């Protein structure tokens, strides 16, 4: 797969797709290692391909070391069939004096691929390299190819940015379709837990708990994260929680039944005692937070009194079995199902591959909507 090829493709081609054609001219004077990215378009070869191309993810490679990159795409034939807008550009080879890389620009993906089967779309998005340093701008974070690759590659762990972006997308769907029937709920982001843990340390030391412009209270009044609802107006809040930077779980605060439910198949992995300690900040501080924002005075239907005992924390039984390493995807999928008022039983481990691809596509589309 690796060959030393220098390719220079024209950069300013709006709404055009530049795909390397048949001509492959080997250039012997390329000093730096040039990665030849070959998308085989075959399911079988995909894994090996990524493993062989891991170094492409490296930032240093993305920035400087690669002078040119060639993309050969078998699916271009499909694309040509489906979309008349696809142009095939093929330009000669230049020496390695350029720092520009070959640019594959798929803009307006929706219009481009009228028959946008997930597979086709995914293939398009795989080849994306935008003009500015291979980075596309999602609402919450800039994302490069490696970022998307992490989502659709099986067994890869999701990071906080993935969870945040996915939850934002879920909130956005909810926000944009207020008429459809959904649960009256909202979500937080992954940073809520970190604020909470930090604050719990203060609480133990008996320092002042809240102060002006408190980030923690911003979550409760709906100012943060973006497109969240104030807690006063909702029945349920979903929180993604991270356990020691190795496991994602989903917690649900139910204001009506006054309960905290944890959706995690692997509760036993954490261990009952550790689990209790893990949930302690939330269960302890939640009531103080709610009192601070005057929750109970505005929601008289919730019987509270002056009871300050922490709400009970329960592990939800019969959570669908999940494979290891996919818990991030499951958390996102659980939130999606629960917000739409559907049972989470249909979230099964054998569909994870499909979930990952769809998540990737939806996040990719959220970028396009920005432009």
């Amino acid at each position, binding site marked *: 797969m690796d060959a030393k090829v220098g390719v220079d493709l024209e950069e300013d081609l709006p709404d055009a797709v530049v795909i390397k054609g048949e001509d492959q001219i080997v250039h012997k004077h390329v000093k730096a290692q040039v990665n030849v990215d070959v998308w085989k378009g075959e399911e079988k070869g995909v894994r090996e391909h990524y493993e062989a191309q891991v170094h492409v993810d490296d*930032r240093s490679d993305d*920035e400087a070391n690669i002078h040119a990159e060639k993309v050969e795409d078998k699916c271009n034939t499909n694309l040509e069939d489906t979309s008349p807008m696809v142009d095939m550009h093929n330009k000669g080879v230049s020496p390695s004096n350029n720092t520009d890389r070959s640019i594959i620009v798929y803009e307006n993906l929706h219009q481009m691929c009228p028959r946008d089967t997930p597979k086709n779309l995914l293939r398009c998005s795989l080849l994306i390299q935008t003009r500015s*340093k291979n*980075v596309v701008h999602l609402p919450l*974070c*800039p994302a490069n190819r490696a970022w998307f690759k992490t989502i659709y590659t099986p067994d890869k762990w999701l*990071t*906080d940015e993935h969870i945040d972006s996915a939850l934002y997308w879920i909130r956005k769907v909810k926000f944009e379709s207020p008429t459809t029937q959904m649960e009256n709920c909202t979500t937080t982001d992954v940073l809520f837990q970190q604020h909470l843990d930090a604050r719990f340390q203060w609480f133990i030391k008996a320092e002042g708990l809240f102060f002006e412009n408190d980030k923690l209270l911003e979550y409760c009044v709906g100012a943060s994260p973006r497109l969240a609802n104030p807690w006063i107006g909702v029945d349920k809040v979903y929180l993604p929680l991270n356990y020691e930077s*190795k496991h994602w779980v989903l917690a649900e605060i139910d204001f009506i039944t006054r309960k905290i439910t944890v959706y995690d198949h692997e509760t036993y992995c954490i261990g009952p005692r550790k689990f209790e300690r893990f949930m302690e900040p939330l269960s302890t501080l939640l009531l103080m937070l709610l009192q601070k924002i005057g929750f109970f005075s505005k929601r008289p239907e919730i019987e509270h009194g002056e009871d300050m005992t922490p709400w009970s924390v329960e592990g939800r039984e019969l959570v669908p079995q999940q494979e*290891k390493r996919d818990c991030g995807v499951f958390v996102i999928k659980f939130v999606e199902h629960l917000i739409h008022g559907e049972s989470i039983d249909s979230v099964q481990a054998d569909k994870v591959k499909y979930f990952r691809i769809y998540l990737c596509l939806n996040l990719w589309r959220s970028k396009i909507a920005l432009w």
Partner: protein
Amino acid sequence: MSDPAVDPPNVKKEAQEEKKTPSEYMTLRVKDKDHNELVFMVRKATPLKKLMDAYCVRKNVELNTFVFLFHGRHLRPEQTPDEAGLGDGDEIDTFQHQLGG
């Protein structure tokens, strides 16, 4: 007596330098979740990686331990302050980078 004679040119020189490069540097305040603050002076055209690494070194932790956010948006190390829309005196929040699987 010689000092005052020497000083004015120095002052002038410094003032000139400041004049020349008023827009080249900016101060950024990096705040962690416990509200401890570190102030960095950075060049506007330097990628933020330098600041991030310096912060991690200062905190005695491995690189990439933290995520850096500005107004809720994640900052990437290859961005420069200008590209990220940062201005003089802006506040960056840091959090632990979290993974899970």
